[in-house]
Protein backbone atom coordinates (compact mmCIF):
# COMPACT_ATOMS: atom_id res chain seq x y z
CA UNK A 1 0.00 0.00 0.00
CA UNK A 2 1.33 3.43 -0.90
CA UNK A 3 2.27 5.69 1.98
CA UNK A 4 -0.29 8.38 2.74
CA UNK A 5 1.01 11.21 4.91
CA UNK A 6 -1.46 12.61 7.42
CA UNK A 7 -0.74 16.15 6.26
CA UNK A 8 0.76 17.62 3.10
CA UNK A 9 4.50 17.39 3.21
CA UNK A 10 6.37 20.42 1.92
CA UNK A 11 9.60 19.97 0.08
CA UNK A 12 12.27 21.63 2.19
CA UNK A 13 15.05 23.51 0.42
CA UNK A 14 18.19 24.20 2.39
CA UNK A 15 19.08 27.09 0.12
CA UNK A 16 15.91 28.85 1.22
CA UNK A 17 16.13 27.88 4.90
CA UNK A 18 19.82 28.09 5.62
CA UNK A 19 21.10 30.44 8.29
CA UNK A 20 24.86 30.10 7.73
CA UNK A 21 27.02 30.55 4.65
CA UNK A 22 29.50 27.87 3.59
CA UNK A 23 32.32 30.09 4.85
CA UNK A 24 30.71 30.29 8.29
CA UNK A 25 30.19 26.54 8.43
CA UNK A 26 33.80 25.80 7.49
CA UNK A 27 35.42 28.58 9.44
CA UNK A 28 38.60 26.98 10.79
CA UNK A 29 41.54 24.99 9.44
CA UNK A 30 42.90 21.69 10.73
CA UNK A 31 46.06 23.61 11.66
CA UNK A 32 44.03 25.98 13.86
CA UNK A 33 42.32 23.00 15.46
CA UNK A 34 45.68 21.49 16.42
CA UNK A 35 46.71 24.68 18.21
CA UNK A 36 43.29 25.34 19.75
CA UNK A 37 43.07 25.37 23.55
CA UNK A 38 39.74 25.27 25.38
CA UNK A 39 39.63 28.04 27.99
CA UNK A 40 39.30 25.63 30.95
CA UNK A 41 41.56 22.82 32.12
CA UNK A 42 40.24 19.66 30.42
CA UNK A 43 43.29 17.42 30.79
CA UNK A 44 41.36 14.40 32.08
CA UNK A 45 38.89 14.64 29.21
CA UNK A 46 41.69 14.84 26.69
CA UNK A 47 42.88 11.42 27.84
CA UNK A 48 39.72 10.05 26.26
CA UNK A 49 40.94 11.16 22.85
CA UNK A 50 43.81 8.70 23.02
CA UNK A 51 41.44 5.69 23.03
CA UNK A 52 40.78 3.60 19.91
CA UNK A 53 37.34 5.07 19.17
CA UNK A 54 36.39 8.50 17.88
CA UNK A 55 35.92 10.69 20.94
CA UNK A 56 33.12 13.12 21.68
CA UNK A 57 35.81 15.34 23.20
CA UNK A 58 37.41 15.73 19.77
CA UNK A 59 34.01 16.59 18.30
CA UNK A 60 33.22 19.04 21.08
CA UNK A 61 36.54 20.83 20.52
CA UNK A 62 35.65 21.30 16.86
CA UNK A 63 32.32 22.78 17.89
CA UNK A 64 34.01 25.05 20.41
CA UNK A 65 36.52 26.38 17.88
CA UNK A 66 33.77 26.86 15.33
CA UNK A 67 31.81 28.99 17.80
CA UNK A 68 34.91 30.98 18.76
CA UNK A 69 35.20 32.07 15.17
CA UNK A 70 31.56 32.93 14.46
CA UNK A 71 30.54 36.61 14.61
CA UNK A 72 28.76 37.77 17.79
CA UNK A 73 25.37 38.18 16.17
CA UNK A 74 25.44 34.71 14.57
CA UNK A 75 24.57 32.80 17.77
CA UNK A 76 21.71 33.47 20.14
CA UNK A 77 23.09 31.72 23.21
CA UNK A 78 26.56 32.18 24.71
CA UNK A 79 29.54 31.52 22.51
CA UNK A 80 31.30 29.55 25.26
CA UNK A 81 28.59 26.97 25.86
CA UNK A 82 30.70 24.03 24.64
CA UNK A 83 33.85 25.17 26.44
CA UNK A 84 31.92 25.60 29.70
CA UNK A 85 30.32 22.19 29.27
CA UNK A 86 33.79 20.65 28.91
CA UNK A 87 35.13 22.63 31.88
CA UNK A 88 32.32 21.42 34.12
CA UNK A 89 32.73 17.84 32.90
CA UNK A 90 36.41 17.92 33.85
CA UNK A 91 35.43 18.90 37.40
CA UNK A 92 32.90 16.09 37.49
CA UNK A 93 35.53 13.61 36.34
CA UNK A 94 37.87 14.82 39.06
CA UNK A 95 35.34 14.74 41.90
CA UNK A 96 33.30 11.80 40.66
CA UNK A 97 30.02 13.69 40.96
CA UNK A 98 27.68 15.43 38.57
CA UNK A 99 27.10 19.16 38.48
CA UNK A 100 23.82 19.03 36.58
CA UNK A 101 20.68 19.78 38.51
CA UNK A 102 18.02 17.23 37.75
CA UNK A 103 14.68 18.30 36.35
CA UNK A 104 12.61 21.43 36.08
CA UNK A 105 9.43 22.96 34.83
CA UNK A 106 10.64 24.19 31.47
CA UNK A 107 8.90 23.00 28.34
CA UNK A 108 7.03 24.30 25.37
CA UNK A 109 3.48 25.42 25.82
CA UNK A 110 0.97 22.59 26.20
CA UNK A 111 3.55 19.81 25.99
CA UNK A 112 4.53 17.76 29.02
CA UNK A 113 7.46 16.11 27.24
CA UNK A 114 10.12 16.74 24.64
CA UNK A 115 12.12 19.22 26.71
CA UNK A 116 14.23 18.24 29.70
CA UNK A 117 15.27 21.05 32.00
CA UNK A 118 18.93 20.97 32.99
CA UNK A 119 20.84 23.59 34.97
CA UNK A 120 24.44 23.78 36.08
CA UNK A 121 25.01 23.93 39.83
CA UNK A 122 28.17 25.93 39.14
CA UNK A 123 26.59 28.80 37.18
CA UNK A 124 29.03 31.43 38.45
CA UNK A 125 31.96 29.47 37.18
CA UNK A 126 30.27 28.33 33.96
CA UNK A 127 27.67 30.99 33.08
CA UNK A 128 27.19 29.79 29.50
CA UNK A 129 25.67 26.53 30.76
CA UNK A 130 23.59 28.06 33.57
CA UNK A 131 20.73 26.63 31.48
CA UNK A 132 21.51 23.54 29.43
CA UNK A 133 18.14 22.16 28.40
CA UNK A 134 17.82 19.11 26.21
CA UNK A 135 15.25 18.88 23.43
CA UNK A 136 14.10 15.63 21.85
CA UNK A 137 13.23 15.77 18.18
CA UNK A 138 10.97 12.94 16.97
CA UNK A 139 12.99 11.12 14.32
CA UNK A 140 11.20 10.06 11.12
CA UNK A 141 10.31 6.36 10.84
CA UNK A 142 13.48 4.30 10.23
CA UNK A 143 15.54 7.51 10.38
CA UNK A 144 15.47 8.37 6.71
CA UNK A 145 16.50 11.97 6.16
CA UNK A 146 16.86 14.30 3.28
CA UNK A 147 20.11 16.24 3.53
CA UNK A 148 18.19 19.50 3.01
CA UNK A 149 16.23 18.70 6.13
CA UNK A 150 19.27 17.71 8.19
CA UNK A 151 21.22 20.81 7.22
CA UNK A 152 18.30 23.08 8.03
CA UNK A 153 17.90 21.37 11.38
CA UNK A 154 21.60 21.72 12.18
CA UNK A 155 21.61 25.42 11.27
CA UNK A 156 18.60 26.08 13.49
CA UNK A 157 20.29 24.37 16.42
CA UNK A 158 23.64 26.08 15.88
CA UNK A 159 21.85 29.44 15.88
CA UNK A 160 19.55 28.93 18.88
CA UNK A 161 21.37 26.24 20.85
CA UNK A 162 24.81 24.81 21.53
CA UNK A 163 25.08 23.16 18.11
CA UNK A 164 25.84 19.87 19.87
CA UNK A 165 23.49 17.01 19.13
CA UNK A 166 23.28 13.31 19.56
CA UNK A 167 22.20 11.04 16.69
CA UNK A 168 20.24 9.31 18.19
CA UNK A 169 19.00 8.81 21.73
CA UNK A 170 17.89 5.35 22.80
CA UNK A 171 14.27 6.07 21.88
CA UNK A 172 15.59 7.13 18.49
CA UNK A 173 15.09 10.86 18.87
CA UNK A 174 17.58 13.38 17.59
CA UNK A 175 18.80 14.95 20.82
CA UNK A 176 19.59 18.65 20.96
CA UNK A 177 22.03 19.18 23.81
CA UNK A 178 21.99 22.48 25.66
CA UNK A 179 20.04 25.69 25.24
CA UNK A 180 18.52 28.47 27.34
CA UNK A 181 14.87 28.69 28.36
CA UNK A 182 14.06 31.65 26.11
CA UNK A 183 15.10 29.69 23.02
CA UNK A 184 12.69 26.78 23.57
CA UNK A 185 9.55 28.32 22.09
CA UNK A 186 11.28 29.83 19.03
CA UNK A 187 12.96 26.50 18.28
CA UNK A 188 9.65 24.68 18.68
CA UNK A 189 7.96 27.21 16.39
CA UNK A 190 10.53 26.76 13.64
CA UNK A 191 10.53 22.98 14.00
CA UNK A 192 6.78 22.67 13.71
CA UNK A 193 5.93 25.52 11.32
CA UNK A 194 8.90 25.37 8.98
CA UNK A 195 10.47 21.91 9.23
CA UNK A 196 7.16 20.07 9.89
CA UNK A 197 8.91 18.40 12.74
CA UNK A 198 7.46 17.46 16.12
CA UNK A 199 9.19 16.98 19.44
CA UNK A 200 9.46 13.47 20.85
CA UNK A 201 8.46 12.09 24.22
CA UNK A 202 10.07 12.33 27.64
CA UNK A 203 8.82 11.87 31.20
CA UNK A 204 5.79 9.77 32.11
CA UNK A 205 4.32 9.42 28.67
CA UNK A 206 4.47 7.40 25.49
CA UNK A 207 8.02 7.78 24.27
CA UNK A 208 8.86 8.41 20.65
CA UNK A 209 7.98 5.15 18.88
CA UNK A 210 10.78 3.71 16.76
CA UNK A 211 11.10 1.03 14.10
CA UNK A 212 13.60 -0.94 12.06
CA UNK A 213 14.24 -0.08 8.43
CA UNK A 214 11.50 -2.52 7.50
CA UNK A 215 10.04 -2.86 4.04
CA UNK A 216 11.90 0.20 2.85
CA UNK A 217 15.06 -1.86 2.44
CA UNK A 218 14.65 -5.27 4.02
CA UNK A 219 13.07 -8.26 2.31
CA UNK A 220 12.58 -10.03 5.66
CA UNK A 221 10.13 -7.51 7.05
CA UNK A 222 6.92 -9.37 7.85
CA UNK A 223 5.07 -6.17 8.79
CA UNK A 224 5.26 -2.59 7.53
CA UNK A 225 7.17 -1.26 10.52
CA UNK A 226 7.38 2.28 9.18
CA UNK A 227 3.68 2.55 8.53
CA UNK A 228 2.84 1.16 11.93
CA UNK A 229 5.28 3.45 13.72
CA UNK A 230 3.93 6.49 11.86
CA UNK A 231 0.30 5.51 12.43
CA UNK A 232 0.65 4.86 16.16
CA UNK A 233 2.76 7.99 16.65
CA UNK A 234 -0.06 10.07 15.15
CA UNK A 235 -2.91 8.17 16.72
CA UNK A 236 -1.45 8.44 20.23
CA UNK A 237 -0.35 12.09 20.10
CA UNK A 238 -2.12 12.84 23.36
CA UNK A 239 -0.27 10.03 25.16
CA UNK A 240 3.00 11.25 23.62
CA UNK A 241 2.72 14.87 24.66
CA UNK A 242 0.53 14.92 27.77
CA UNK A 243 1.97 12.66 30.44
CA UNK A 244 -0.46 10.83 32.70
CA UNK A 245 1.13 7.37 32.85
CA UNK A 246 2.80 6.01 35.99
CA UNK A 247 6.13 6.14 34.15
CA UNK A 248 7.63 5.95 30.67
CA UNK A 249 6.17 3.62 28.04
CA UNK A 250 7.93 2.55 24.85
CA UNK A 251 6.69 1.04 21.59
CA UNK A 252 9.26 -0.42 19.21
CA UNK A 253 8.62 -2.19 15.91
CA UNK A 254 10.84 -4.85 14.38
CA UNK A 255 9.97 -6.33 11.02
CA UNK A 256 11.27 -9.80 11.91
CA UNK A 257 12.85 -11.66 14.84
CA UNK A 258 16.31 -10.33 13.96
CA UNK A 259 15.11 -7.41 16.06
CA UNK A 260 17.28 -4.65 14.61
CA UNK A 261 15.78 -1.98 16.93
CA UNK A 262 16.10 -4.42 19.84
CA UNK A 263 12.43 -4.07 20.68
CA UNK A 264 12.61 -7.23 22.77
CA UNK A 265 15.18 -5.67 25.09
CA UNK A 266 14.05 -2.06 25.17
CA UNK A 267 10.30 -1.68 24.76
CA UNK A 268 7.42 -2.00 27.21
CA UNK A 269 5.49 -3.22 24.19
CA UNK A 270 7.58 -4.92 21.51
CA UNK A 271 6.10 -5.62 18.08
CA UNK A 272 8.02 -8.25 16.15
CA UNK A 273 7.04 -9.31 12.67
CA UNK A 274 6.58 -13.06 12.14
CA UNK A 275 4.73 -15.63 10.03
CA UNK A 276 2.47 -18.54 10.85
CA UNK A 277 2.75 -20.65 7.71
CA UNK A 278 5.93 -22.29 6.48
CA UNK A 279 9.43 -21.06 5.73
CA UNK A 280 9.69 -20.84 1.94
CA UNK A 281 12.43 -23.12 0.62
CA UNK A 282 14.14 -23.00 -2.74
CA UNK A 283 15.83 -26.43 -2.89
CA UNK A 284 17.95 -25.44 -5.92
CA UNK A 285 19.43 -22.56 -3.93
CA UNK A 286 20.01 -24.88 -0.93
CA UNK A 287 22.09 -27.06 -3.25
CA UNK A 288 23.98 -24.01 -4.50
CA UNK A 289 24.88 -23.06 -0.91
CA UNK A 290 25.96 -26.63 -0.18
CA UNK A 291 28.06 -26.67 -3.34
CA UNK A 292 29.78 -23.41 -2.41
CA UNK A 293 28.30 -21.48 -5.33
CA UNK A 294 26.57 -18.92 -3.09
CA UNK A 295 28.41 -17.38 -0.15
CA UNK A 296 26.61 -17.98 3.17
CA UNK A 297 25.39 -15.05 5.29
CA UNK A 298 25.26 -12.84 2.22
CA UNK A 299 29.06 -12.92 2.16
CA UNK A 300 29.30 -11.21 5.54
CA UNK A 301 32.16 -13.38 6.84
CA UNK A 302 34.39 -13.16 3.79
CA UNK A 303 37.18 -11.44 5.73
CA UNK A 304 38.67 -14.79 6.72
CA UNK A 305 38.74 -18.30 5.29
CA UNK A 306 36.37 -20.40 7.35
CA UNK A 307 36.64 -23.43 5.09
CA UNK A 308 33.84 -24.78 2.89
CA UNK A 309 30.26 -24.19 3.98
CA UNK A 310 28.91 -27.07 6.08
CA UNK A 311 25.11 -26.99 6.19
CA UNK A 312 24.95 -29.60 8.95
CA UNK A 313 27.32 -27.77 11.27
CA UNK A 314 26.39 -24.21 10.45
CA UNK A 315 22.64 -24.45 10.03
CA UNK A 316 20.99 -27.72 11.03
CA UNK A 317 22.94 -28.28 14.26
CA UNK A 318 22.46 -24.67 15.30
CA UNK A 319 18.70 -24.67 14.90
CA UNK A 320 17.57 -24.02 18.49
CA UNK A 321 14.59 -26.37 18.25
CA UNK A 322 16.37 -29.04 16.17
CA UNK A 323 13.56 -29.03 13.66
CA UNK A 324 15.64 -29.28 10.46
CA UNK A 325 17.21 -32.23 8.69
CA UNK A 326 18.47 -33.35 5.27
CA UNK A 327 16.57 -35.99 3.35
CA UNK A 328 17.79 -37.14 -0.09
CA UNK A 329 19.82 -33.95 -0.40
CA UNK A 330 16.77 -31.83 0.39
CA UNK A 331 16.47 -29.53 3.39
CA UNK A 332 13.42 -30.36 5.48
CA UNK A 333 11.83 -28.24 8.23
CA UNK A 334 9.22 -29.29 10.77
CA UNK A 335 7.57 -25.87 10.80
CA UNK A 336 5.37 -26.47 13.80
CA UNK A 337 8.49 -26.80 15.93
CA UNK A 338 10.27 -23.78 14.40
CA UNK A 339 10.52 -20.82 16.80
CA UNK A 340 11.16 -18.32 13.98
CA UNK A 341 14.64 -17.53 15.28
CA UNK A 342 15.78 -16.44 11.77
CA UNK A 343 19.13 -18.25 12.00
CA UNK A 344 18.72 -20.51 8.96
CA UNK A 345 17.24 -17.66 6.93
CA UNK A 346 20.11 -15.34 7.86
CA UNK A 347 22.67 -17.92 6.75
CA UNK A 348 20.96 -18.85 3.48
CA UNK A 349 18.85 -15.86 2.45
CA UNK A 350 18.56 -16.96 -1.17
CA UNK A 351 17.32 -20.43 -0.23
CA UNK A 352 15.05 -19.66 2.70
CA UNK A 353 12.52 -16.91 3.23
CA UNK A 354 9.91 -16.18 5.90
CA UNK A 355 6.43 -17.47 5.13
CA UNK A 356 3.72 -15.44 3.44
CA UNK A 357 0.98 -15.45 6.08
CA UNK A 358 2.59 -12.69 8.09
CA UNK A 359 1.64 -10.76 11.20
CA UNK A 360 3.06 -9.65 14.49
CA UNK A 361 4.13 -11.19 17.79
CA UNK A 362 3.52 -8.88 20.73
CA UNK A 363 5.69 -8.96 23.83
CA UNK A 364 5.49 -6.91 27.00
CA UNK A 365 7.61 -5.48 29.73
CA UNK A 366 11.27 -4.99 28.74
CA UNK A 367 13.17 -2.41 30.72
CA UNK A 368 16.60 -1.28 31.90
CA UNK A 369 17.98 -2.35 35.30
CA UNK A 370 16.80 0.43 37.66
CA UNK A 371 14.61 -1.90 39.76
CA UNK A 372 14.81 -5.70 39.80
CA UNK A 373 17.46 -5.83 37.08
CA UNK A 374 17.12 -5.67 33.32
CA UNK A 375 14.21 -7.55 31.84
CA UNK A 376 13.43 -8.72 28.32
CA UNK A 377 9.86 -8.54 27.16
CA UNK A 378 7.58 -11.54 27.55
CA UNK A 379 6.05 -13.19 24.50
CA UNK A 380 2.35 -12.89 25.23
CA UNK A 381 0.62 -12.79 21.86
CA UNK A 382 2.42 -15.20 19.52
CA UNK A 383 0.59 -14.09 16.39
CA UNK A 384 -1.82 -11.37 15.42
CA UNK A 385 -2.72 -10.03 12.00
CA UNK A 386 -1.29 -6.59 11.55
CA UNK A 387 -2.89 -4.41 8.87
CA UNK A 388 -3.49 -0.66 8.81
CA UNK A 389 -5.11 1.04 10.65
CA UNK A 390 -4.34 -1.62 13.31
CA UNK A 391 -7.69 -1.23 15.08
CA UNK A 392 -7.50 -4.80 16.41
CA UNK A 393 -4.26 -3.97 18.20
CA UNK A 394 -5.31 -0.51 19.39
CA UNK A 395 -8.66 -1.61 20.78
CA UNK A 396 -7.93 -5.11 22.07
CA UNK A 397 -4.37 -4.80 23.24
CA UNK A 398 -2.95 -1.31 23.74
CA UNK A 399 -5.91 0.38 25.35
CA UNK A 400 -6.93 -2.34 27.84
CA UNK A 401 -3.27 -2.65 28.77
CA UNK A 402 -2.90 1.07 29.43
CA UNK A 403 -6.15 1.12 31.42
CA UNK A 404 -4.77 -1.61 33.66
CA UNK A 405 -1.35 -0.02 34.12
CA UNK A 406 -2.82 3.43 34.76
CA UNK A 407 -5.20 1.96 37.31
CA UNK A 408 -2.86 -0.44 39.09
CA UNK A 409 0.67 0.77 38.37
CA UNK A 410 2.48 2.54 41.18
CA UNK A 411 4.24 5.83 40.55
CA UNK A 412 7.43 5.13 38.59
CA UNK A 413 6.52 1.47 38.06
CA UNK A 414 7.25 0.18 34.56
CA UNK A 415 4.83 -2.23 32.92
CA UNK A 416 7.34 -5.08 33.34
CA UNK A 417 7.43 -4.48 37.09
CA UNK A 418 3.65 -4.45 37.33
CA UNK A 419 3.52 -7.78 35.47
CA UNK A 420 6.04 -9.15 37.95
CA UNK A 421 4.10 -7.83 40.91
CA UNK A 422 0.61 -8.93 39.86
CA UNK A 423 1.56 -11.93 37.77
CA UNK A 424 1.34 -13.02 34.16
CA UNK A 425 -2.10 -14.50 34.78
CA UNK A 426 -3.35 -10.99 35.59
CA UNK A 427 -1.86 -9.69 32.35
CA UNK A 428 -3.63 -12.45 30.41
CA UNK A 429 -6.90 -11.64 32.12
CA UNK A 430 -6.56 -7.96 31.23
CA UNK A 431 -5.93 -8.84 27.60
CA UNK A 432 -8.51 -11.60 27.62
CA UNK A 433 -6.21 -14.20 26.09
CA UNK A 434 -5.53 -17.82 27.06
CA UNK A 435 -2.24 -18.86 28.62
CA UNK A 436 0.30 -20.89 26.68
CA UNK A 437 2.17 -23.88 28.13
CA UNK A 438 5.43 -21.93 27.60
CA UNK A 439 4.30 -19.41 30.21
CA UNK A 440 4.08 -22.02 32.97
CA UNK A 441 7.19 -22.01 35.09
CA UNK A 442 6.41 -25.02 37.36
CA UNK A 443 3.53 -27.36 38.28
CA UNK A 444 0.91 -25.47 40.18
CA UNK A 445 1.47 -25.28 43.90
CA UNK A 446 -1.69 -23.41 44.87
CA UNK A 447 -5.04 -25.20 44.44
CA UNK A 448 -6.80 -21.82 44.55
CA UNK A 449 -5.20 -20.74 41.31
CA UNK A 450 -8.56 -21.10 39.54
CA UNK A 451 -10.37 -18.88 42.00
CA UNK A 452 -10.67 -15.13 42.18
CA UNK A 453 -11.31 -13.46 45.49
CA UNK A 454 -14.61 -12.00 44.31
CA UNK A 455 -15.89 -15.49 43.43
CA UNK A 456 -15.33 -16.88 46.92
CA UNK A 457 -17.99 -16.13 49.57
CA UNK A 458 -16.25 -14.05 52.21
CA UNK A 459 -13.19 -13.53 49.99
CA UNK A 460 -9.71 -14.33 51.31
CA UNK A 461 -10.50 -12.72 54.62
CA UNK A 462 -13.18 -14.97 56.10
CA UNK A 463 -12.43 -16.24 59.59
CA UNK A 464 -10.88 -19.67 59.91
CA UNK A 465 -12.50 -20.00 63.40
CA UNK A 466 -15.98 -20.13 61.86
CA UNK A 467 -14.86 -23.00 59.69
CA UNK A 468 -13.09 -24.80 62.54
CA UNK A 469 -16.25 -24.54 64.68
CA UNK A 470 -17.86 -26.90 62.21
CA UNK A 471 -14.85 -28.99 61.10
CA UNK A 472 -12.35 -30.41 63.59
CA UNK A 473 -8.71 -30.31 62.54
Amino acid at each position, binding site marked *: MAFEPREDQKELKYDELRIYSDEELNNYTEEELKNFKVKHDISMLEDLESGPWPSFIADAKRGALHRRKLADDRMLIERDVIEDMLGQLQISFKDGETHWKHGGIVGVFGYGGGVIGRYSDLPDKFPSIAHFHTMRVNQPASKFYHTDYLRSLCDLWEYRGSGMMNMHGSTGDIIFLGTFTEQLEPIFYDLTHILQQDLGGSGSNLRTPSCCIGRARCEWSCIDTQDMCYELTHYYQDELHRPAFPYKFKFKFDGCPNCCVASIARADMSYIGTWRDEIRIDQEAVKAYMGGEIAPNGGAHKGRDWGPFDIQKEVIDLCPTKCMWLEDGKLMIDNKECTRCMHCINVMPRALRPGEDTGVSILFGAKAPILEGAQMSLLTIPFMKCEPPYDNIKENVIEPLWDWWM*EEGKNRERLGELIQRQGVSKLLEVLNIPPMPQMVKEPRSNPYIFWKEEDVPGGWKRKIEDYRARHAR
Partner: protein
Amino acid sequence: MEDIKKAILDFAENSKKTKFYFSDMEKAVHKVLPDAKTRMIKKAATALINEEKLIYFSTGSSTMYGLKGRGQTEDH
Protein backbone atom coordinates in the same frame (compact mmCIF):
# COMPACT_ATOMS: atom_id res chain seq x y z
CA MET B 1 -15.33 18.61 33.42
CA GLU B 2 -15.58 21.86 35.42
CA ASP B 3 -16.17 19.90 38.63
CA ILE B 4 -13.11 17.76 37.94
CA LYS B 5 -11.03 20.87 37.30
CA LYS B 6 -12.23 22.34 40.57
CA ALA B 7 -11.37 19.14 42.45
CA ILE B 8 -7.87 19.17 40.96
CA LEU B 9 -7.29 22.81 41.91
CA ASP B 10 -8.62 22.25 45.43
CA PHE B 11 -6.20 19.39 45.82
CA ALA B 12 -3.28 21.32 44.32
CA GLU B 13 -3.91 24.35 46.53
CA ASN B 14 -4.29 22.39 49.74
CA SER B 15 -1.75 19.64 49.21
CA LYS B 16 1.33 19.77 51.42
CA LYS B 17 3.46 18.88 48.42
CA THR B 18 4.16 21.36 45.65
CA LYS B 19 4.65 18.57 43.10
CA PHE B 20 2.49 15.52 42.72
CA TYR B 21 2.02 12.59 40.37
CA PHE B 22 -0.95 12.20 38.07
CA SER B 23 -2.17 9.28 40.18
CA ASP B 24 -2.14 11.43 43.37
CA MET B 25 -4.33 13.93 41.56
CA GLU B 26 -6.56 11.13 40.31
CA LYS B 27 -7.01 9.77 43.84
CA ALA B 28 -7.90 13.23 45.12
CA VAL B 29 -10.50 13.67 42.38
CA HIS B 30 -11.98 10.26 43.14
CA LYS B 31 -12.52 11.26 46.77
CA VAL B 32 -14.89 14.00 45.61
CA LEU B 33 -16.10 12.49 42.33
CA PRO B 34 -15.82 8.71 42.60
CA ASP B 35 -17.12 8.12 39.06
CA ALA B 36 -14.71 10.43 37.23
CA LYS B 37 -12.99 8.51 34.44
CA THR B 38 -9.19 8.60 34.15
CA ARG B 39 -9.50 9.93 30.61
CA MET B 40 -11.64 12.84 31.80
CA ILE B 41 -9.24 13.62 34.63
CA LYS B 42 -6.44 13.72 32.14
CA LYS B 43 -8.47 16.02 29.85
CA ALA B 44 -9.20 18.30 32.80
CA ALA B 45 -5.53 18.38 33.79
CA THR B 46 -4.56 19.22 30.20
CA ALA B 47 -7.14 22.02 30.15
CA LEU B 48 -5.66 23.43 33.37
CA ILE B 49 -2.19 23.28 31.81
CA ASN B 50 -3.50 25.17 28.79
CA GLU B 51 -5.16 27.74 31.07
CA GLU B 52 -1.76 28.10 32.76
CA LYS B 53 -3.11 27.13 36.16
CA LEU B 54 -1.14 23.89 36.39
CA ILE B 55 2.44 23.27 35.28
CA TYR B 56 4.36 20.17 34.38
CA PHE B 57 7.53 19.29 36.26
CA SER B 58 9.78 16.78 34.53
CA THR B 59 13.01 15.12 35.57
CA GLY B 60 13.31 13.77 32.05
CA SER B 61 12.35 10.28 33.13
CA SER B 62 9.12 10.96 34.98
CA THR B 63 6.67 13.80 35.09
CA MET B 64 4.78 15.48 37.92
CA TYR B 65 2.23 18.27 38.08
CA GLY B 66 2.24 21.43 40.19
CA LEU B 67 0.21 24.57 40.77
CA LYS B 68 1.61 27.51 38.85
CA GLY B 69 3.30 29.98 41.17
CA ARG B 70 3.64 27.53 44.02
CA GLY B 71 6.97 25.86 44.79
CA GLN B 72 9.46 25.97 41.99
CA THR B 73 9.18 29.02 39.74
CA GLU B 74 9.93 29.41 36.04
CA ASP B 75 13.68 29.28 36.40
CA HIS B 76 15.38 26.82 38.75
